Protein backbone atom coordinates (compact mmCIF):
# COMPACT_ATOMS: atom_id res chain seq x y z
CA UNK A 1 0.00 0.00 0.00
CA UNK A 2 1.26 3.46 -0.73
CA UNK A 3 2.18 5.60 2.20
CA UNK A 4 3.15 8.79 0.39
CA UNK A 5 1.63 9.98 -2.86
CA UNK A 6 2.66 13.04 -4.82
CA UNK A 7 0.33 13.99 -7.66
CA UNK A 8 1.33 16.68 -10.16
CA UNK A 9 3.21 18.52 -7.43
CA UNK A 10 4.50 21.85 -8.70
CA UNK A 11 6.10 24.81 -7.01
CA UNK A 12 7.02 28.11 -8.56
CA UNK A 13 9.24 30.75 -7.00
CA UNK A 14 8.28 33.73 -9.08
CA UNK A 15 9.22 32.74 -12.59
CA UNK A 16 11.33 29.75 -11.57
CA UNK A 17 9.60 26.38 -11.64
CA UNK A 18 11.60 24.45 -9.07
CA UNK A 19 9.45 21.34 -9.14
CA UNK A 20 7.33 20.62 -12.20
CA UNK A 21 4.36 18.25 -12.12
CA UNK A 22 6.12 15.52 -10.17
CA UNK A 23 4.23 12.29 -9.66
CA UNK A 24 5.61 9.83 -7.17
CA UNK A 25 4.32 7.03 -5.02
CA UNK A 26 6.23 5.55 -2.12
CA UNK A 27 5.20 2.07 -0.96
CA UNK A 28 5.01 1.37 2.74
CA UNK A 29 8.04 -0.40 4.11
CA UNK A 30 10.21 0.19 1.08
CA UNK A 31 13.39 2.16 0.63
CA UNK A 32 13.04 4.74 -2.13
CA UNK A 33 15.84 7.00 -3.32
CA UNK A 34 15.55 10.32 -5.08
CA UNK A 35 18.58 11.17 -7.16
CA UNK A 36 19.50 13.86 -9.62
CA UNK A 37 22.07 16.55 -10.32
CA UNK A 38 22.54 19.41 -7.88
CA UNK A 39 19.78 21.97 -8.17
CA UNK A 40 17.33 19.44 -9.55
CA UNK A 41 14.80 20.20 -6.84
CA UNK A 42 15.30 17.21 -4.54
CA UNK A 43 15.58 19.14 -1.27
CA UNK A 44 12.78 21.40 -2.46
CA UNK A 45 10.63 18.30 -2.85
CA UNK A 46 11.53 17.24 0.69
CA UNK A 47 10.62 20.69 1.95
CA UNK A 48 7.29 20.43 0.13
CA UNK A 49 6.52 17.10 1.78
CA UNK A 50 7.49 18.29 5.25
CA UNK A 51 5.49 21.50 4.99
CA UNK A 52 8.24 24.10 4.81
CA UNK A 53 6.94 25.02 1.36
CA UNK A 54 3.39 24.90 0.05
CA UNK A 55 2.97 23.52 -3.47
CA UNK A 56 1.63 25.94 -6.07
CA UNK A 57 -0.24 23.06 -7.68
CA UNK A 58 -0.81 19.40 -7.03
CA UNK A 59 -1.56 17.27 -4.00
CA UNK A 60 0.54 15.44 -1.48
CA UNK A 61 -1.12 12.69 0.52
CA UNK A 62 0.35 10.87 3.45
CA UNK A 63 -1.51 7.71 4.48
CA UNK A 64 -4.44 8.85 2.32
CA UNK A 65 -4.70 12.23 3.99
CA UNK A 66 -3.76 15.45 2.25
CA UNK A 67 -0.85 17.23 3.87
CA UNK A 68 -0.02 19.87 1.28
CA UNK A 69 0.01 23.28 2.90
CA UNK A 70 -0.10 21.98 6.47
CA UNK A 71 2.37 23.39 8.98
CA UNK A 72 5.66 21.53 9.49
CA UNK A 73 4.93 20.67 13.10
CA UNK A 74 1.57 19.20 12.16
CA UNK A 75 3.16 17.03 9.48
CA UNK A 76 5.92 15.90 11.83
CA UNK A 77 3.34 14.97 14.45
CA UNK A 78 1.49 12.96 11.78
CA UNK A 79 4.51 10.68 11.45
CA UNK A 80 7.00 12.10 8.97
CA UNK A 81 10.53 12.44 10.32
CA UNK A 82 13.39 14.10 8.49
CA UNK A 83 17.05 14.94 8.54
CA UNK A 84 18.56 17.99 6.91
CA UNK A 85 21.07 18.38 4.13
CA UNK A 86 23.19 20.78 6.16
CA UNK A 87 22.92 19.35 9.64
CA UNK A 88 20.49 21.21 11.89
CA UNK A 89 21.22 19.82 15.30
CA UNK A 90 20.63 21.68 18.54
CA UNK A 91 24.35 22.17 19.01
CA UNK A 92 24.35 23.70 22.50
CA UNK A 93 22.25 20.87 23.90
CA UNK A 94 23.39 17.37 24.78
CA UNK A 95 22.98 14.39 22.49
CA UNK A 96 20.31 13.00 24.79
CA UNK A 97 18.41 16.29 24.88
CA UNK A 98 18.45 16.42 21.08
CA UNK A 99 16.78 13.03 20.84
CA UNK A 100 14.39 13.88 23.70
CA UNK A 101 13.27 16.88 21.68
CA UNK A 102 12.78 14.54 18.76
CA UNK A 103 10.49 12.57 21.04
CA UNK A 104 8.47 15.70 21.77
CA UNK A 105 5.38 14.48 19.92
CA UNK A 106 5.38 11.33 22.04
CA UNK A 107 4.61 13.31 25.17
CA UNK A 108 1.81 15.53 26.38
CA UNK A 109 2.95 17.36 29.50
CA UNK A 110 3.19 21.09 28.99
CA UNK A 111 3.67 24.07 31.31
CA UNK A 112 1.49 22.61 34.07
CA UNK A 113 3.44 19.38 33.75
CA UNK A 114 6.66 21.34 34.13
CA UNK A 115 5.46 22.96 37.35
CA UNK A 116 4.15 19.68 38.77
CA UNK A 117 7.49 18.05 38.09
CA UNK A 118 7.24 15.36 40.75
CA UNK A 119 3.72 14.22 40.07
CA UNK A 120 3.54 10.51 39.11
CA UNK A 121 2.12 11.10 35.64
CA UNK A 122 4.83 13.60 34.79
CA UNK A 123 7.60 11.33 36.06
CA UNK A 124 6.13 8.41 34.16
CA UNK A 125 6.06 10.34 30.91
CA UNK A 126 9.61 11.60 31.37
CA UNK A 127 10.69 8.01 31.99
CA UNK A 128 8.97 6.85 28.81
CA UNK A 129 10.53 9.63 26.75
CA UNK A 130 13.92 8.83 28.25
CA UNK A 131 13.57 5.13 27.35
CA UNK A 132 12.50 6.02 23.82
CA UNK A 133 15.47 8.34 23.42
CA UNK A 134 17.92 5.66 24.60
CA UNK A 135 16.32 3.18 22.17
CA UNK A 136 16.89 5.57 19.26
CA UNK A 137 20.45 6.24 20.35
CA UNK A 138 21.06 2.49 20.47
CA UNK A 139 19.83 2.18 16.89
CA UNK A 140 22.53 4.59 15.70
CA UNK A 141 25.15 3.49 18.20
CA UNK A 142 25.52 6.75 20.09
CA UNK A 143 24.45 5.80 23.62
CA UNK A 144 27.99 6.15 24.89
CA UNK A 145 27.93 9.86 24.08
CA UNK A 146 24.52 10.67 25.53
CA UNK A 147 25.72 13.55 27.71
CA UNK A 148 28.11 15.06 25.20
CA UNK A 149 27.22 18.39 23.62
CA UNK A 150 25.86 17.78 20.14
CA UNK A 151 28.12 20.44 18.70
CA UNK A 152 31.21 18.59 19.96
CA UNK A 153 30.51 15.42 18.01
CA UNK A 154 32.55 14.58 14.93
CA UNK A 155 30.74 15.07 11.64
CA UNK A 156 29.79 11.45 11.01
CA UNK A 157 28.30 11.09 14.50
CA UNK A 158 26.36 14.32 14.07
CA UNK A 159 24.70 12.82 10.99
CA UNK A 160 23.83 9.70 12.96
CA UNK A 161 22.44 11.83 15.78
CA UNK A 162 20.15 13.60 13.34
CA UNK A 163 18.82 10.21 12.28
CA UNK A 164 18.29 9.19 15.91
CA UNK A 165 16.45 12.44 16.53
CA UNK A 166 14.16 11.84 13.55
CA UNK A 167 13.53 8.27 14.70
CA UNK A 168 12.35 9.52 18.09
CA UNK A 169 9.20 10.78 16.41
CA UNK A 170 8.46 7.07 15.84
CA UNK A 171 7.66 8.02 12.27
CA UNK A 172 5.89 5.96 9.62
CA UNK A 173 8.30 7.36 7.07
CA UNK A 174 11.68 8.97 7.49
CA UNK A 175 13.13 11.42 4.96
CA UNK A 176 16.93 11.37 4.83
CA UNK A 177 18.47 14.31 3.01
CA UNK A 178 21.96 13.26 1.85
CA UNK A 179 22.72 11.11 4.90
CA UNK A 180 26.05 9.93 3.51
CA UNK A 181 27.42 13.33 2.52
CA UNK A 182 30.98 13.87 3.65
CA UNK A 183 31.46 10.35 4.97
CA UNK A 184 34.36 8.03 4.22
CA UNK A 185 33.65 4.55 2.74
CA UNK A 186 33.81 2.86 6.13
CA UNK A 187 31.26 5.25 7.62
CA UNK A 188 29.05 4.87 4.55
CA UNK A 189 29.05 1.12 4.98
CA UNK A 190 28.01 1.47 8.63
CA UNK A 191 25.30 3.90 7.58
CA UNK A 192 24.03 1.51 4.94
CA UNK A 193 23.61 -1.26 7.49
CA UNK A 194 21.97 1.20 9.89
CA UNK A 195 19.41 2.31 7.28
CA UNK A 196 18.68 -1.31 6.38
CA UNK A 197 18.13 -2.09 10.07
CA UNK A 198 15.78 0.89 10.36
CA UNK A 199 13.86 -0.30 7.32
CA UNK A 200 13.50 -3.75 8.88
CA UNK A 201 11.69 -2.20 11.86
CA UNK A 202 8.94 -1.19 9.45
CA UNK A 203 9.81 2.45 8.89
CA UNK A 204 9.57 3.51 5.25
CA UNK A 205 12.75 5.22 4.08
CA UNK A 206 12.79 7.96 1.47
CA UNK A 207 16.23 9.33 0.84
CA UNK A 208 18.09 11.81 -1.32
CA UNK A 209 21.68 10.86 -2.05
CA UNK A 210 24.48 11.48 -4.54
CA UNK A 211 26.63 8.44 -3.83
CA UNK A 212 25.51 6.00 -6.55
CA UNK A 213 27.04 2.96 -4.92
CA UNK A 214 25.17 3.73 -1.73
CA UNK A 215 21.92 4.34 -3.58
CA UNK A 216 22.19 1.24 -5.74
CA UNK A 217 23.10 -0.89 -2.75
CA UNK A 218 20.12 0.04 -0.61
CA UNK A 219 17.13 1.13 -2.69
CA UNK A 220 14.08 -0.84 -3.72
CA UNK A 221 13.10 1.88 -6.17
CA UNK A 222 14.82 4.99 -7.49
CA UNK A 223 13.30 8.18 -8.90
CA UNK A 224 15.39 10.62 -10.87
CA UNK A 225 14.81 14.37 -10.90
CA UNK A 226 16.37 16.82 -13.33
CA UNK A 227 15.47 20.53 -13.52
CA UNK A 228 12.41 19.86 -11.37
CA UNK A 229 11.03 17.16 -13.64
CA UNK A 230 10.94 13.45 -12.92
CA UNK A 231 12.79 11.91 -15.84
CA UNK A 232 12.85 8.29 -14.74
CA UNK A 233 11.69 5.87 -12.09
CA UNK A 234 12.32 2.21 -11.53
CA UNK A 235 14.48 -0.45 -9.95
CA UNK A 236 18.23 0.21 -9.58
CA UNK A 237 18.96 -1.95 -12.65
CA UNK A 238 16.47 -0.05 -14.80
CA UNK A 239 17.85 3.33 -13.68
CA UNK A 240 21.43 2.27 -14.24
CA UNK A 241 20.68 1.48 -17.88
CA UNK A 242 18.35 4.43 -18.56
CA UNK A 243 19.90 6.71 -21.20
CA UNK A 244 18.09 9.84 -19.94
CA UNK A 245 19.61 9.35 -16.51
CA UNK A 246 23.07 8.84 -17.89
CA UNK A 247 22.65 11.98 -20.00
CA UNK A 248 21.54 14.05 -17.00
CA UNK A 249 24.50 12.98 -14.89
CA UNK A 250 27.24 12.60 -17.45
CA UNK A 251 26.12 14.68 -20.41
CA UNK A 252 24.88 13.91 -23.94
CA UNK A 253 28.11 12.30 -25.12
CA UNK A 254 28.08 9.69 -22.40
CA UNK A 255 24.47 8.72 -23.16
CA UNK A 256 25.24 7.93 -26.78
CA UNK A 257 28.30 5.91 -25.74
CA UNK A 258 26.36 3.79 -23.19
Amino acid at each position, binding site marked *: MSILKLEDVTIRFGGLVAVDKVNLTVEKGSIVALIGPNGAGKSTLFNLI*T*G*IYTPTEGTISFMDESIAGK*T*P*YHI*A*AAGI*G*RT*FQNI*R*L*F*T*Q*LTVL*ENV*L*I*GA*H*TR*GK*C*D*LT*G*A*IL*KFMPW*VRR*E*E*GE*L*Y*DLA*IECLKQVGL*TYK*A*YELAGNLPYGEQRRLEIA*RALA*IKPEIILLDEPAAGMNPQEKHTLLEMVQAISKTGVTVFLVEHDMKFVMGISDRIAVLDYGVKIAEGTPEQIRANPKVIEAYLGKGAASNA
Partner: protein
Amino acid sequence: MGTYLQSLVAMVDPYLMQILVNVGIAIVLALGLNVIVGLTGQLSLGHAAFMSIGAFASAMITIKTGLPFSLNLVLTGVVTALVAAIIGFPILRLTGDYLAICTLGFAEIVKVFFLNFEPTNKALGLTVPAAKTVIPMPIYVLIVAIIAIVLVTFVQSSRFGRALKAIREDEIAAEAMGINTTRYKIQAFALGSFMAGVGGGLYAHFLSYINPSDFGFLKSVDILSMVVLGGLGSVPGTVIGSSILASAPEFLRFMSQYRMLVYGALLVFLMVFRPNGLLGGVNFMDLCLRAIGKKPAGVALKQKK
Protein backbone atom coordinates in the same frame (compact mmCIF):
# COMPACT_ATOMS: atom_id res chain seq x y z
CA MET B 1 3.17 34.75 63.68
CA GLY B 2 3.11 38.12 62.02
CA THR B 3 4.71 39.91 64.95
CA TYR B 4 7.35 37.21 65.26
CA LEU B 5 8.36 37.70 61.64
CA GLN B 6 8.24 41.47 62.07
CA SER B 7 10.76 41.26 64.90
CA LEU B 8 12.94 38.99 62.79
CA VAL B 9 12.96 41.54 60.02
CA ALA B 10 13.61 44.36 62.46
CA MET B 11 16.82 42.64 63.54
CA VAL B 12 18.40 43.35 60.18
CA ASP B 13 19.80 46.77 59.39
CA PRO B 14 17.10 48.62 57.37
CA TYR B 15 19.56 49.78 54.71
CA LEU B 16 20.80 46.23 54.14
CA MET B 17 17.20 44.99 54.17
CA GLN B 18 16.28 47.42 51.43
CA ILE B 19 19.17 46.15 49.27
CA LEU B 20 18.16 42.55 49.88
CA VAL B 21 14.56 43.22 48.94
CA ASN B 22 15.68 44.99 45.78
CA VAL B 23 17.83 41.98 44.94
CA GLY B 24 14.90 39.64 45.58
CA ILE B 25 12.59 41.59 43.31
CA ALA B 26 15.32 41.81 40.68
CA ILE B 27 15.73 38.03 40.81
CA VAL B 28 12.02 37.51 40.13
CA LEU B 29 12.07 39.97 37.21
CA ALA B 30 15.31 38.66 35.74
CA LEU B 31 14.22 35.03 35.95
CA GLY B 32 11.09 35.94 34.03
CA LEU B 33 13.16 37.60 31.34
CA ASN B 34 15.51 34.62 31.35
CA VAL B 35 12.65 32.38 30.29
CA ILE B 36 11.97 34.64 27.31
CA VAL B 37 15.50 35.58 26.28
CA GLY B 38 17.70 32.88 27.77
CA LEU B 39 15.56 29.78 27.31
CA THR B 40 13.54 30.62 24.22
CA GLY B 41 15.96 32.99 22.53
CA GLN B 42 13.41 35.75 21.92
CA LEU B 43 14.95 39.17 22.45
CA SER B 44 12.52 41.28 24.46
CA LEU B 45 13.45 44.88 25.22
CA GLY B 46 10.17 45.71 26.91
CA HIS B 47 10.19 43.64 30.07
CA ALA B 48 9.73 46.75 32.24
CA ALA B 49 6.37 47.33 30.57
CA PHE B 50 5.03 44.11 32.04
CA MET B 51 6.56 45.04 35.36
CA SER B 52 4.63 48.31 35.26
CA ILE B 53 1.39 46.60 34.26
CA GLY B 54 1.88 44.31 37.23
CA ALA B 55 2.74 47.18 39.56
CA PHE B 56 -0.32 49.25 38.67
CA ALA B 57 -2.65 46.27 38.54
CA SER B 58 -1.48 45.06 41.92
CA ALA B 59 -1.78 48.54 43.41
CA MET B 60 -5.31 48.97 42.07
CA ILE B 61 -6.33 45.56 43.44
CA THR B 62 -5.13 46.59 46.89
CA ILE B 63 -6.80 50.00 46.66
CA LYS B 64 -10.13 48.89 45.20
CA THR B 65 -10.57 45.48 46.79
CA GLY B 66 -9.57 43.94 50.05
CA LEU B 67 -8.08 40.84 48.58
CA PRO B 68 -5.27 39.16 50.54
CA PHE B 69 -1.85 39.81 49.10
CA SER B 70 -1.21 36.27 47.87
CA LEU B 71 -4.37 36.35 45.78
CA ASN B 72 -3.46 39.85 44.69
CA LEU B 73 -0.12 38.67 43.32
CA VAL B 74 -1.59 35.66 41.53
CA LEU B 75 -4.26 37.81 39.92
CA THR B 76 -1.66 40.40 38.95
CA GLY B 77 0.46 37.71 37.33
CA VAL B 78 -2.49 36.33 35.40
CA VAL B 79 -3.54 39.76 34.12
CA THR B 80 0.00 40.55 33.01
CA ALA B 81 0.35 37.15 31.35
CA LEU B 82 -2.91 37.70 29.47
CA VAL B 83 -1.73 41.05 28.14
CA ALA B 84 1.54 39.40 27.12
CA ALA B 85 -0.26 36.59 25.31
CA ILE B 86 -2.45 39.05 23.44
CA ILE B 87 0.43 41.25 22.35
CA GLY B 88 2.63 38.23 21.74
CA PHE B 89 0.23 36.64 19.29
CA PRO B 90 1.01 39.06 16.44
CA ILE B 91 4.55 40.10 17.31
CA LEU B 92 6.15 36.77 18.18
CA ARG B 93 5.98 35.79 14.54
CA LEU B 94 8.81 38.27 14.04
CA THR B 95 12.40 37.32 14.47
CA GLY B 96 15.41 38.79 16.23
CA ASP B 97 15.85 42.49 15.75
CA TYR B 98 12.30 43.11 14.54
CA LEU B 99 10.85 41.48 17.64
CA ALA B 100 13.18 43.57 19.80
CA ILE B 101 12.02 46.78 18.18
CA CYS B 102 8.38 45.78 18.58
CA THR B 103 8.81 45.03 22.28
CA LEU B 104 10.57 48.37 22.66
CA GLY B 105 7.67 50.12 21.00
CA PHE B 106 5.17 48.25 23.12
CA ALA B 107 7.00 49.32 26.28
CA GLU B 108 6.78 52.95 25.27
CA ILE B 109 3.06 52.56 24.53
CA VAL B 110 2.49 51.15 28.01
CA LYS B 111 4.46 53.98 29.61
CA VAL B 112 2.55 56.67 27.75
CA PHE B 113 -0.71 54.88 28.54
CA PHE B 114 -0.08 55.01 32.28
CA LEU B 115 1.19 58.58 32.09
CA ASN B 116 -2.26 59.51 30.82
CA PHE B 117 -4.43 57.02 32.70
CA GLU B 118 -6.78 58.95 35.01
CA PRO B 119 -7.55 56.16 37.54
CA THR B 120 -3.87 55.78 38.40
CA ASN B 121 -3.21 59.51 38.75
CA LYS B 122 -1.57 59.92 35.38
CA ALA B 123 1.93 61.39 35.66
CA LEU B 124 1.63 62.11 39.38
CA GLY B 125 2.08 58.46 40.22
CA LEU B 126 0.22 56.27 42.63
CA THR B 127 0.65 55.90 46.35
CA VAL B 128 0.24 52.26 47.24
CA PRO B 129 -1.28 51.33 50.60
CA ALA B 130 0.25 48.56 52.66
CA ALA B 131 -0.18 45.03 51.37
CA LYS B 132 -2.95 43.02 52.98
CA THR B 133 -0.85 40.44 54.78
CA VAL B 134 0.64 39.71 58.18
CA ILE B 135 3.87 38.58 56.62
CA PRO B 136 6.33 41.46 56.37
CA MET B 137 7.28 42.45 52.82
CA PRO B 138 10.94 41.29 52.94
CA ILE B 139 9.86 37.76 53.85
CA TYR B 140 7.24 37.84 51.13
CA VAL B 141 9.85 38.81 48.57
CA LEU B 142 12.12 36.04 49.80
CA ILE B 143 9.36 33.44 49.46
CA VAL B 144 8.39 34.61 45.98
CA ALA B 145 12.03 34.69 44.87
CA ILE B 146 12.53 31.10 46.06
CA ILE B 147 9.36 30.00 44.28
CA ALA B 148 10.56 31.72 41.11
CA ILE B 149 13.94 29.98 41.26
CA VAL B 150 12.35 26.57 41.81
CA LEU B 151 9.76 27.20 39.08
CA VAL B 152 12.23 28.17 36.38
CA THR B 153 14.57 25.31 37.34
CA PHE B 154 11.67 22.87 36.96
CA VAL B 155 10.70 24.38 33.62
CA GLN B 156 14.25 24.07 32.30
CA SER B 157 14.39 20.31 32.68
CA SER B 158 10.88 19.58 31.49
CA ARG B 159 9.43 18.69 28.10
CA PHE B 160 8.13 22.27 27.91
CA GLY B 161 11.58 23.68 28.65
CA ARG B 162 13.20 21.42 26.07
CA ALA B 163 10.81 22.70 23.43
CA LEU B 164 11.79 26.27 24.35
CA LYS B 165 15.47 25.44 24.10
CA ALA B 166 14.87 23.80 20.73
CA ILE B 167 13.23 26.98 19.49
CA ARG B 168 16.20 28.96 20.73
CA GLU B 169 18.67 26.69 18.94
CA ASP B 170 16.95 26.20 15.59
CA GLU B 171 13.33 27.07 14.88
CA ILE B 172 13.08 25.17 11.62
CA ALA B 173 14.49 22.00 13.15
CA ALA B 174 12.17 22.47 16.14
CA GLU B 175 9.16 22.62 13.82
CA ALA B 176 10.40 19.47 12.08
CA MET B 177 10.25 17.78 15.48
CA GLY B 178 6.56 18.58 15.83
CA ILE B 179 6.93 21.67 18.02
CA ASN B 180 4.39 24.43 17.37
CA THR B 181 6.92 27.22 17.71
CA THR B 182 4.44 30.10 17.74
CA ARG B 183 2.39 28.54 20.52
CA TYR B 184 5.44 27.82 22.67
CA LYS B 185 6.90 31.27 22.09
CA ILE B 186 3.66 32.85 23.27
CA GLN B 187 3.55 30.58 26.31
CA ALA B 188 7.15 31.42 27.22
CA PHE B 189 6.41 35.11 26.75
CA ALA B 190 3.33 34.81 28.97
CA LEU B 191 5.24 32.92 31.66
CA GLY B 192 8.06 35.46 31.70
CA SER B 193 5.56 38.29 31.84
CA PHE B 194 3.63 36.58 34.65
CA MET B 195 6.81 36.74 36.70
CA ALA B 196 7.41 40.34 35.65
CA GLY B 197 3.89 41.20 36.81
CA VAL B 198 4.41 39.56 40.17
CA GLY B 199 7.74 41.34 40.51
CA GLY B 200 6.00 44.61 39.69
CA GLY B 201 3.38 43.93 42.36
CA LEU B 202 6.06 43.29 44.96
CA TYR B 203 7.90 46.42 43.85
CA ALA B 204 4.76 48.56 44.14
CA HIS B 205 3.95 47.43 47.67
CA PHE B 206 7.51 47.63 48.91
CA LEU B 207 8.20 51.10 47.57
CA SER B 208 4.66 52.30 48.36
CA TYR B 209 4.81 54.70 45.46
CA ILE B 210 4.97 53.98 41.72
CA ASN B 211 5.33 56.36 38.82
CA PRO B 212 5.04 55.40 35.11
CA SER B 213 8.45 56.99 34.44
CA ASP B 214 10.09 54.37 36.66
CA PHE B 215 9.39 51.70 34.07
CA GLY B 216 11.09 53.03 30.99
CA PHE B 217 13.55 51.53 28.55
CA LEU B 218 16.40 51.90 31.05
CA LYS B 219 14.62 49.59 33.45
CA SER B 220 14.21 46.98 30.71
CA VAL B 221 17.91 47.24 29.93
CA ASP B 222 18.71 46.94 33.65
CA ILE B 223 16.88 43.63 33.87
CA LEU B 224 18.33 42.41 30.59
CA SER B 225 21.85 43.20 31.83
CA MET B 226 21.25 41.01 34.85
CA VAL B 227 20.27 38.10 32.66
CA VAL B 228 23.14 38.59 30.23
CA LEU B 229 25.69 39.11 33.00
CA GLY B 230 24.67 35.94 34.76
CA GLY B 231 24.61 33.91 31.60
CA LEU B 232 21.68 33.47 29.24
CA GLY B 233 19.59 30.47 30.17
CA SER B 234 21.32 29.79 33.45
CA VAL B 235 19.17 30.04 36.57
CA PRO B 236 22.03 30.28 39.11
CA GLY B 237 23.69 32.73 36.74
CA THR B 238 20.63 34.96 36.66
CA VAL B 239 20.43 34.89 40.45
CA ILE B 240 24.07 35.90 40.74
CA GLY B 241 23.77 38.51 37.98
CA SER B 242 20.73 40.05 39.66
CA SER B 243 22.42 40.03 43.05
CA ILE B 244 25.47 41.80 41.71
CA LEU B 245 23.73 44.40 39.58
CA ALA B 246 20.88 45.17 41.99
CA SER B 247 23.27 45.76 44.86
CA ALA B 248 26.21 47.28 42.98
CA PRO B 249 24.83 50.85 42.89
CA GLU B 250 24.60 50.75 46.68
CA PHE B 251 27.95 49.11 47.34
CA LEU B 252 29.61 51.52 44.97
CA ARG B 253 28.11 54.51 46.74
CA PHE B 254 31.41 55.30 48.37
CA MET B 255 32.62 56.28 44.94
CA SER B 256 29.93 58.99 44.85
CA GLN B 257 29.87 60.59 41.42
CA TYR B 258 32.06 57.92 39.82
CA ARG B 259 29.55 55.26 40.86
CA MET B 260 27.69 54.78 37.57
CA LEU B 261 30.94 55.10 35.65
CA VAL B 262 32.37 52.15 37.52
CA TYR B 263 29.08 50.26 37.17
CA GLY B 264 29.22 50.66 33.41
CA ALA B 265 32.90 49.79 33.26
CA LEU B 266 32.23 46.65 35.31
CA LEU B 267 29.65 45.53 32.78
CA VAL B 268 31.93 46.19 29.81
CA PHE B 269 34.85 44.42 31.49
CA LEU B 270 32.75 41.35 32.22
CA MET B 271 31.32 41.23 28.72
CA VAL B 272 34.74 41.49 27.09
CA PHE B 273 36.32 38.74 29.13
CA ARG B 274 33.29 36.55 29.61
CA PRO B 275 30.73 37.24 26.88
CA ASN B 276 28.79 34.13 27.74
CA GLY B 277 28.00 35.64 31.09
CA LEU B 278 29.35 34.45 34.44
CA LEU B 279 27.63 31.09 34.36
CA GLY B 280 26.66 30.91 30.71
CA GLY B 281 26.93 27.39 29.37
CA VAL B 282 28.08 26.11 32.72
CA ASN B 283 26.24 23.31 34.43
CA PHE B 284 25.95 24.64 37.98
CA MET B 285 25.56 21.23 39.60
CA ASP B 286 28.69 19.95 37.88
CA LEU B 287 30.57 23.06 38.99
CA CYS B 288 29.56 22.56 42.62
CA LEU B 289 30.43 18.88 42.56
CA ARG B 290 33.83 19.61 41.08
CA ALA B 291 34.41 22.29 43.69
CA ILE B 292 33.98 19.80 46.50
CA GLY B 293 36.14 17.27 44.73
CA LYS B 294 33.56 14.85 43.40
CA LYS B 295 33.18 13.76 39.79
CA PRO B 296 30.06 15.13 38.07
CA ALA B 297 27.20 12.72 37.60
CA GLY B 298 25.65 11.96 34.23
CA VAL B 299 28.73 10.35 32.73
CA ALA B 300 27.08 6.95 33.12
CA LEU B 301 23.53 6.46 31.93
CA LYS B 302 20.70 6.16 34.41
CA GLN B 303 19.92 2.56 35.26
CA LYS B 304 16.42 1.40 34.38
CA LYS B 305 14.30 1.27 37.53
